[in-house]
């Protein structure tokens, strides 16, 4: 394996030498025979299938259920590198929370001061006017954030997008680790890999910290799911189980005198904090989509009355709109008085005339994304697009420039992944998860996604991507997860 120009290789330096923090893993895999790897793959598939760890791809006539594709070769991040990332993530999510609270419950100072244009907010599809002045304890509007990071050709980390509404994937982080410790216990033997399986406890602590002050010191938390047909239902059930709280659907909840209660076998039980995995528009038919049967009538009024807290807060889409994303470095400077530790990818706002003109000339060299989508839907990658696709993208941009951004292609870094008969370099990204309660906490590592097709830059599982266990190496002061669980 040798370094190739244009991409940063995670495991080897530009002289072709294995980087120190990958040496134990690389050596361990070098000792495996083809048959051994294939046996491990079989074992992994069987284990995921047995546990029902799957995901659903939407589109076409109906969703398709697939077994979770985890690659055996782990990603490794050394302690020092992680410390910088952790600081950068805490900084970013802190600023985003300040921004969301400023917009919905504050003076909108950042708009008055002209740092962010008002019309950027009022034209945002995720800006929920019905969430205006609904207070959230601690201002923890983004209680769970998933921040997508990539590494450019020089190895520098960049934020590609923020996910502040309902980021998913944490259950796969935990299941990947569980699978790896079973499949490859010996691979952990020389390393102190930091644990991820405390996530349920940390999430519960964060959720309880935003409970309405009046509800006492033993608040009741519930996870609200759209139901079993949702692509992330597995995760919703997983999180409720790992927190030891009820998993409910909208029909299980009732609002009486602006107080939320759930129907249980013991009768009605008051709910203080709802971790909802339902989109804003389905949450309460009184104020949003009146046709929604997934939500709870009167829930927004209860939140406004302060008898229940909802996480993540309603209206967070205003913070992860991809045109607003371009302003996050300014938010960090404005709210925190700091320089961003992790920079954005180079981004063009297509409603700005000059930037649009430049982008339309170079469309075949850039990535074009719709501002309010996630999961990789609607993305056009210039260098790989056909002329017809580029022409279509151009029309869409001209039709509604506010709805699109363009970014320079980031040559995602590479790491070996199993390619049928050998390990070959494949492109990866990283989605760390950040929890905000009384403190801001980053779960070590996160979800490393890998584009399993050769040359592909699309890592989304909905688009043929897989994942890798992500190992953050501990130093002497930090707790590490052992081989045995």
């Amino acid at each position, binding site marked *: 394996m040798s370094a190739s120009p244009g991409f940063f290789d995670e495991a080897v330096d530009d002289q072709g030498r294995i980087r120190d923090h990958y040496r134990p893993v690389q050596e361990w895999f070098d000792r495996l025979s083809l048959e051994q790897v294939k046996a491990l793959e079989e074992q992994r598939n069987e284990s995921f299938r047995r546990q029902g760890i799957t995901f659903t791809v939407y589109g076409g006539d109906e969703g398709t259920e697939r077994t979770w594709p985890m690659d055996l070769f782990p990603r490794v991040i050394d302690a020092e590198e992680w410390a910088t990332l952790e600081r950068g993530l805490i900084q970013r999510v802190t600023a985003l929370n300040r921004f969301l609270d400023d917009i919905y419950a504050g003076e909108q100072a950042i708009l008055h001061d002209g740092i962010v*244009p*008002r*019309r950027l907010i*009022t*034209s945002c599809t995720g800006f929920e*006017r*019905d969430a*205006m*002045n609904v207070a959230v304890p601690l201002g923890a509007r983004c209680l769970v954030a998933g921040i997508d990071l990539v590494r450019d050709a020089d190895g520098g980390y960049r934020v590609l997008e923020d996910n502040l509404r309902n980021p998913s994937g944490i259950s796969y982080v935990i299941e990947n680790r569980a699978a790896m410790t079973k499949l490859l216990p010996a691979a952990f033997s020389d390393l102190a890999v930091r644990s991820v399986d405390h996530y349920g406890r940390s999430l519960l602590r964060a959720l309880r910290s935003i409970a309405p002050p009046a509800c006492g010191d033993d608040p009741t938390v519930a996870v609200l799911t759209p139901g079993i047909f949702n692509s992330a239902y597995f995760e919703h059930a997983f999180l409720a189980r790992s927190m030891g709280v009820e998993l409910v659907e909208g029909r299980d909840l*009732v*609002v*009486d*005198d*602006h107080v939320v209660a759930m129907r249980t076998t013991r009768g009605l039980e008051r709910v203080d904090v709802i971790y909802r995995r339902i989109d804003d528009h389905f949450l309460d*038919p*009184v*104020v949003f989509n*009146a046709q929604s049967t997934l939500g709870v*009538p*009167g829930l927004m*009024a209860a939140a*406004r*009355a302060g008898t229940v807290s909802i996480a993540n807060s309603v209206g967070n889409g205003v913070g992860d709109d991809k045109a607003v994303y371009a302003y996050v470095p300014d938010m960090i400077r404005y709210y925190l008085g700091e320089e961003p530790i992790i920079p954005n990818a180079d981004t063009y706002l297509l409603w700005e005339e000059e930037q649009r003109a430049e982008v339309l000339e170079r469309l075949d060299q850039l990535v074009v994304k719709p501002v309010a989508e996630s999961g990789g839907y609607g993305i056009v990658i210039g260098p790989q697009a056909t002329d017809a696709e580029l022409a279509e993208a151009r029309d869409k941009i001209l039709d509604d420039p506010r709805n699109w951004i363009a970014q320079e292609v980031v040559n995602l870094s590479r790491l070996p992944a199993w390619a049928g008969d050998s390990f070959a370099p494949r492109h990866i990204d990283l989605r760390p998860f950040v929890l905000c309660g009384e403190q801001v906490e980053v779960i070590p590592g996160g979800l490393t996604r890998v584009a399993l097709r050769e040359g592909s830059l699309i890592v989304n599982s909905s688009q043929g991507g897989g994942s890798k266990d992500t190992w953050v190496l501990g130093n002497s002061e930090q707790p590490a997860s052992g081989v045995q669980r």
Partner: protein
Amino acid sequence: MRLDISYRTKFAFDAPVRESQNELRACPVSDERQQLLDYRVSVEPSARMLSFTDYWGTRVDHFGVTESHAGLEVIAEASVETQDPPAHSAAPAMESLGDREFLNTHDEFLKPTRHTDWDEAMAQKALEVAAADGSDVVSAITGLNEFVGGRLAYEPGATEIGEPITEILAKGAGVCQDYAHLAVALCRSIGVPARYVSGYLFSSNERTGSVDGDLVRVQTHAWFEAAVPGGGWLALDPTNRLAVGRQHVKIGHGRDYDDVPPLRGVYSGPGIPELDASVEIRRMDPSRQPSSLMRPSLLAAVKAPRTREQQQQQQQ
């Protein structure tokens, strides 16, 4: 003018419903033209009220009824003191609409919405109307107000809420909400920020604005406001082609009807509701006359012949 308003809505379900959750927007706003003196809401079956001011500045009263009920009655009573608006002196040129900061602060009143989604033909018509009445923003707005008032025939039941504005225009008939939505859409189509206003009209005839006696029985009313660069919001009533004056009581505004519906909510159960809504407005200082129906600055714009209207009056 001191007006006492009683808003009443009664639902009768043909079978009991288990639960209903509702939001009421019936309270007059306090602004530079009117002052709210008193406001009370009562609901039967009784329910706890959560009152708050929404994003648009409108007071909302939220209540839920979670016991089985076959009927629901909401009564909102308000006392309000109204005045005529100050005269509009600014008449900026159309070019001033392109000012970057003006666009930045009025963006949400320039976009099409569910009820104000215009087409190319409407935008073309709006341009013609605006050009015919001079090249300044105020003349364009008053011209469009006139155009809408003359283009639609007042016909209760002609349209349904949710009908596209292009279809309403093709029909050429509607009620006050349709007049307001059409005016808003036309203004926006030529770059004039406009907003829909929900309120009450102290008038015995919504179509003419005329007043007969001190007590009127009406429905909620709707009109529109358009933004004049450097001159604030100009309020006009296309249903009766009037400038908004002291007989208009504003509840609130939004991008369209959906932002300020008098009552919205959901109920669960098999029952189908029959709705009975009414508004009573009583003038409490009858010695004072309502304002003249046209302000001088708008006289020029309100000059179309009234024959058609008068014919309609005779029919009523």
